[in-house]
């Protein structure tokens, strides 16, 4: 083959790829039922929601909830672990069916996702180094704050948070940071905070469970004050499959009714986060 003919072949195969495949309603549920597997996207780096346990398997609150939903749908659950930013970008293209990854529903996200069910609330708290002299939130004005990139904690620190899902408790901005540093995950932010008060960070805004875990693991940090906001967390699916959405909503409703969800929350957090205090 001449190099020209070879190139022509490449061009032709590219053209074939350019033909788009449309999705249709009910397709996701059909796919799940046909394959008898529910493909769940979740973060592998977000203990205790989802993480690798001692047996090198995914484990955690989100993982247990997903398994339970699968059980109630009568299908096997299979996990995939793309980066969080890839999950929230949407356009899943059938790679996975549902995200059980503690996603905060918002109007922006509602443009690409349906949120069949809010399954728990996470109190968001402010953590400082244990040598920090701050005693109240106003002491944190003009400080350097670390958060997870594209999280609600980042939005809160940047004073750009909208919690517009139904049932989200009201909140107010307690302090005004000088700079907000965004990290790929909360552990890196804690790693920077542990270096010393103000060495790289003064404050980390994160979820109460991860702050408590970090303290338990010996990080020299402490929680400051009460939770600054309660973040509703939902299961997310892509638009366009009402039946699938209803099935998941029913499954979560059942789990709430028979106490499974509260039990799982207590198992993983020691506290029932499925209700707002």
């Amino acid at each position: 083959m001449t190099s020209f003919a070879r190139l022509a072949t490449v061009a032709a195969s590219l053209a074939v790829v350019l033909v788009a495949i449309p999705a249709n309603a009910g397709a996701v549920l059909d796919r799940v039922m046909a394959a008898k597997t529910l493909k769940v996207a979740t973060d592998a780096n977000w203990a205790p929601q989802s993480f690798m346990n001692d047996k090198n398997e995914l484990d955690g609150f989100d993982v247990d909830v997903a398994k339970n939903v699968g059980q109630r749908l009568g299908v096997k659950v299979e996990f995939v672990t793309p980066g969080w930013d890839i999950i929230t970008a949407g356009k899943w293209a059938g790679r996975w069916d549902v995200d059980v990854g503690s996603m905060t529903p918002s109007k922006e996200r509602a443009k690409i996702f349906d949120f069949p069910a809010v399954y728990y609330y996470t109190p968001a708290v402010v953590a400082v180094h244990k040598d920090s002299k701050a005693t109240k939130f106003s002491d944190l004005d003009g400080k350097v704050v670390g958060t997870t990139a594209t999280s609600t904690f980042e939005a809160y620190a940047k004073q750009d948070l909208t919690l517009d899902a139904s049932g989200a408790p009201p909140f107010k901005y307690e302090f005004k940071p000088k700079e907000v540093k965004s990290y790929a995950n909360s552990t890196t932010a804690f790693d920077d905070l542990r270096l010393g008060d103000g060495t790289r960070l003064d404050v980390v805004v994160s979820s109460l469970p991860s702050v408590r875990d970090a303290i338990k693991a010996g990080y020299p940090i402490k929680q400051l004050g009460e939770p600054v906001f309660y973040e509703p967390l939902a299961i997310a699916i892509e638009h366009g499959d009402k039946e699938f959405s209803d099935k998941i909503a029913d499954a979560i409703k059942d789990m709430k009714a028979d106490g499974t969800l509260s039990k799982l929350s207590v198992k993983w957090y020691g506290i029932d986060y499925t209700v707002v205090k």
Partner: protein
Amino acid sequence: MLYPDTVESEVLVHKPWFVATLFAAVLVVFLLFNLTGTSFGELMRPVIGDPGTSGLYGRFAIAFAIAVMFALNVVLIGFAPLRLQIAIVWLELLILFLAFFETFHLSLPFIEEKLPFMITQGLVTTIYVSAISIIIASAIAVLGAVAKLSNNGFAYAIASFYTSFFRGLPLLMQVYLIYLGLPQLGFVIDAVPAGILALSLCYGAYMTEIFRSGIQSIDRGQWEASRSMGFGFGVTMRKIILPQALPVIIPPTGNQFISMLKDSSLVSVIGVWELMFLARTLGQKTFQHMEMLVSAAMLYWILSICLELVQSRIERHYARSKVR
């Protein structure tokens, strides 16, 4: 060696001025740091008394001791034969590294527990992803190099556009573009093939340039002689040009293989459970990620050393004609 000749000269590290300069430099550098609080300060206790209160004298004594040890070490190594020198210096640097990791207080039982999974899941994935990418990239590189050297404007344009584009974008971005972009065209690609595609295309572009420059480094007289004997393009390439170009091509290609092995870690962002992904995930729950990062680093290093050894064997093979 650059040029081993037979002129006998005194070894550099035995010249008094060099040893003196080295000694002074090390002394100054270590005077800048206060090492009285370290275990080395403890070691010097018989000479300087309580390290905490020894002040400037303690600092000087420690720096002096280190400088003496360093200079003596260098002078002594100078007496050894070449191979022994190399071995000793390697060993010393390795010990320094281990001492550095020792300061992290890593939990060895945890590493021991996780290592089998890191190898069976992570290392295996890393190896097969890089191996497939290396094969595809090499194939692309041969095609690309031929196209870039051809007189066909169409082929040249496509090949040069390809190398320019894929060398001009960060590999991480290519991984995202392929994984997230191709589904927009209706072509849903899984994480592993997406990673392999991105690695192959990126490294194919670099290697295209390596192959091209290797082929071009052969004198045009070789082409002319070959053509005048009636050889066609294919035979000239296979029998005359490539055998001469390979010794030029192999060292930078080996470099590319090693660097591809490590860049395969970038596909962890799309959720492939390879070495880097596990290194970031396994110790997360218990905040023992330093253990996992260090173990993964060691595994990458061992793999790279294997590739280095293979490369040096191949280079020796092609250097046979230059041996006297």
